């Protein structure tokens, strides 16, 4: 029965994609190296860069996971000295979104003291994911 086959295939795909999404969510990418690193002008965003790192979050309006992420990053800012946080509205910074290849919100970029993008995560990271990544790379 073709119908049952299609249904089974869809269910299997949905299961696989859910697992993939759960695995990827909030996971920070492998750090970029030397030449290929992107740079963000933090001052242009109206925020003072952190001495050790700057966490840049791209959000959109009424995005529930963005709200969660904002709270988490604010907490990290108080916990870790030398870290500052910038929140960027994706829709009013579309050139930046395009330049940095931001595909979904929330996306969190971790910048080093010079403003180079070290790693990024899309989807809401947990507080521990952020702390662990900061400790590992900066």
């Amino acid at each position: 029965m073709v119908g049952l086959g299609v249904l089974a295939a869809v269910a299997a795909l949905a299961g696989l994609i859910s697992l993939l999404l759960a695995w990827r969510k909030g996971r920070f990418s492998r750090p970029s190296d030397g030449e290929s690193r992107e740079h963000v002008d933090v001052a242009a965003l109206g925020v003072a860069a952190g001495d050790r790192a700057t966490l840049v979050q791209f959000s959109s309006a009424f995005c529930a996971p963005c709200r969660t992420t904002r709270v988490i990053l604010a907490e990290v800012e108080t916990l870790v000295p030398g870290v500052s946080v910038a929140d960027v509205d994706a829709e009013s910074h579309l050139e930046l979104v395009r330049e940095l290849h931001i595909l979904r919100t929330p996306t969190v970029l971790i910048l080093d003291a010079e403003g180079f993008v070290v790693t990024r995560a899309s989807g809401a990271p947990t507080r521990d994911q952020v702390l662990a990544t900061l400790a590992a790379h900066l």
Partner: protein
Amino acid sequence: MFRQPCSVDPRGLRFSAIVTSAVLATVIVAPSPISEVLLVLQVAVFAVGVFLGPSATIHALIFARTIRPRLDDAVMLEDALPAQFAQGVGLAFTALGLVSLLAGLHIVGLVFVGGALLAALLNATTGFCLGCEFYLTTRRFAKHLA
């Protein structure tokens, strides 16, 4: 482009996704003409969702009347626009599926409906909204073309 800020209760969207998944799954396995009739109804629901907003669909109305009164107030609301766009994606897939089925292209029709079901299932189970993810991408395009 003037945009009316409009928010929806995400739990209502989740409920809609669950009902939609059930309907589309039935469309895939049910015999003709039940499958076509159900599909026409689903296409109509998506059309209402796109043109009148997700809160205007029958699913949303049922949710508002029978389920939401039993729940706590929504902690946060979601922007309706990406959800509306997602309804458009659903409309496209199911409409193409319907046309294919009516044209006798059975397997092609099932594949289109299967695609719509996949998106609805992901939304119903994990809250992931495929159409919403495309929304930011299209906004980038729109700005680029403007």
